[in-house]
């Protein structure tokens, strides 16, 4: 794993010392809130509905047991004993006191973590496939490149005041688990004639104007990556709109100017700056790649796994749902669900964090990942160790067998925490999960992604949910709009709005009608919700959602 260099450590230490002094000056009244706000945002500190919120970057979602344990200790010492993992592979603390934040940042720095550029109009935490370095379907581990981008973008002097925030995602696999087409820049590793490179996707994003990213370059040689990224961001920095916050993201810049125009500008800029990249970045990348060398995978007996799989139906159900194929023989990727039925999606208690850390140490080559779907991944576990691992998870309430199923819901914090929210998300997620657990239907329903956002900014990715739910304020009442058919994978699609919204009381029965309709409509159990939707379109689902209107139309 990448460890901070002396340079990283010095930079973070210096920034923390600066911020400590800024907090002191805010508290004694030397700084107004208008002066302090941009400073705190540069360090990941928001003021939310009921409290401050500290957003900590987990670069490309990767951390080790020491870091996870530190996150737990911070939650206990300065927060309320839990943390919230987000769709951007960050962790958020919902209850820090202003005076404590500098100490929290120092505690993070002790384990090579920080909150820099988790907010503001900068290049944000670079996200990656949460199965990176482990997935059977991967061309190469995307994390060395993500780390290179992190180093390049952190405190990049040209890009500290962009027109708007800027998000980059990288995947090394053709099966896109990093939602690259919904990022300002998405990078997909590809090979051409045996040469490794990237497909560069630009201008994707969700929010109030959802757009699927467009291919700016279908093949970019690896060594051209940084100068090409710098060209894109610098074209955007000049061309992006600063007159209207809602038109400031690069997706609008691309939309308004056209892809060809943007491409021509980027290529022109690239020709100019490419010679300035002397190859130092490639030397750095080679060193970083060594840090990400695969662990020494072991050979061991699979007998414990096979015995548990045949004899223990609870283990079998979990193994069938929460494991993914690993590239090393005998190994599996374990997804630990932070979506126990009725719990808050993405929340982990400090005890759970400590347990996951110790399991990573004992069984997982000391690696953990945070997925954008708000779960924790142990990327490298030998199958022979799975029964012991499962038993430990079960004792801690972490063995819910629901990965990819209807109760594995993404939900933003919504109006329970967020100052921008227009409605709550968390209780809707809790009620849907609880309801389908009561119905004992979720394994029968199969793969189905529900994603809930509590406002139009779409942190809950509702546009790319198979079923998306958007919470709005309609005349002073919470109202929930449904979109259908969204997809965040390599076949990315924006969901289609199904019709008028539902009240908080109506939304759970509406989702139930929708899912029961799917069970009737599918040709066979292996046809997923999304496949059925793609085959039949909106109409039959609309009839299920709005039975009164359907009856009136039929009459």
């Amino acid at each position: 794993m990448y460890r901070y260099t002396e340079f990283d450590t010095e930079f973070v230490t210096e920034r923390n010392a600066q911020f400590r002094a800024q907090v002191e000056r805010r508290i004694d009244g030397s700084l107004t809130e208008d002066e302090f706000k941009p400073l705190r945002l540069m360090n990941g500190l928001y003021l939310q509905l009921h409290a401050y919120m500290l957003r900590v970057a987990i670069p490309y979602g990767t951390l080790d047991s020491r870091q996870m344990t530190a996150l737990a200790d911070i939650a206990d010492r300065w927060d309320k004993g839990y943390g919230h993992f987000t769709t951007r592979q960050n962790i958020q603390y919902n209850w820090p006191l202003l005076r404590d934040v500098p100490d929290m940042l120092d505690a993070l720095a002790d384990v090579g973590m920080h909150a820099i550029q988790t907010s503001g109009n900068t290049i944000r935490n670079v996200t990656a496939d949460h199965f990176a370095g482990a997935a059977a379907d991967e061309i190469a581990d995307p994390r060395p490149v993500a780390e290179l981008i992190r180093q390049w973008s952190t405190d990049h002097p040209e890009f500290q005041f962009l027109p708007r925030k800027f998000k980059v995602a990288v995947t090394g696999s053709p099966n896109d688990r990093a939602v690259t087409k919904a990022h300002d820049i998405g990078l997909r590793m590809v090979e051409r004639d045996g040469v490794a490179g990237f497909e560069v996707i630009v201008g994707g994003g969700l929010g109030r104007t959802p757009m699927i990213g467009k291919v700016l370059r279908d093949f970019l040689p690896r060594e051209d990556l940084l100068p090409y990224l710098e060209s894109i961001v610098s074209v955007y920095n000049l061309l992006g709109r600063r007159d209207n916050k809602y038109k400031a993201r690069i997706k609008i810049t691309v939309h308004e100017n056209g892809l060809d125009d943007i491409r021509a500008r980027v290529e022109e800029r690239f020709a100019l700056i490419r010679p300035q990249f002397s190859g130092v970045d490639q030397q750095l990348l080679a060193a970083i790649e060594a840090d990400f060398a695969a662990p020494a995978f072991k050979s061991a007996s699979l007998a414990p796994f096979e015995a548990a799989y045949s004899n223990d139906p609870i283990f079998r159900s979990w193994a069938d749902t929460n494991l993914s194929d690993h590239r090393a023989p005998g190994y599996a990727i374990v997804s630990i669900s932070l979506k126990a039925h009725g719990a808050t999606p993405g929340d982990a208690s400090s005890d759970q964090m400590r347990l996951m850390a110790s399991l990573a140490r004992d069984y997982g080559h000391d690696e953990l990942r945070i997925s954008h779907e708000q779960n924790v991944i142990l990327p490298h576990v030998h199958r022979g160790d799975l029964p012991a691992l499962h038993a430990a998870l079960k004792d801690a309430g972490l063995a819910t067998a629901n990965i990819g199923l209807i109760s594995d819901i993404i939900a933003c914090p919504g109006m329970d925490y967020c100052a921008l929210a227009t409605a709550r998300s968390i209780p809707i997620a809790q009620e849907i999960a609880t309801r389908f657990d009561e119905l004992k239907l979720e394994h029968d329903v199969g793969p189905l992604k529900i994603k809930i956002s509590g406002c139009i900014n779409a942190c809950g990715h509702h546009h790319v949910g198979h079923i998306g739910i958007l919470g709005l304020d309609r005349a002073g009442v919470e109202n929930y709009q449904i979109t259908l058919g969204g997809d965040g994978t390599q076949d990315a699609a924006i969901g289609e709005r199904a019709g008028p919204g539902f009240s908080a009381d109506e939304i759970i029965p509406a989702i139930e009608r929708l899912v029961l309709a799917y069970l009737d409509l599918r040709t066979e159990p292996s046809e997923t919700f999304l496949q059925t939707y793609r085959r039949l379109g909106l109409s039959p689902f609309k009839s299920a959602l709005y039975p009164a209107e359907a009856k009136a139309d039929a009459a």
Partner: protein
Amino acid sequence: MAREFTPKVVTANDLLLGDVIYQTASGWTRELDHAEVLTDEADADLRLIEAAQQINRVVGAYLADVVPQAGGPAPAHFREAFRARGPSNYRHGKQEDDIAPL
């Protein structure tokens, strides 16, 4: 014709705690039902200016609509109801038993 002025309270976040606070006749409180209800527009504007000037005490002061009731003001909008109560998934913030007075 000017719209009729509806009753309001001055609310903000506490600089150090971050918690939602409300202006009283003499200071600030964490509980909405102890807030001072403002029924005169000019008075409300003045009280808001006074609040906003307390830069090392409060953040983001504004006027929120309330419905005066026997037990004190009640929130007019659901957002204010959540601000007054705290999150719905845990009994944290104002819902904790031993919240410190300001």
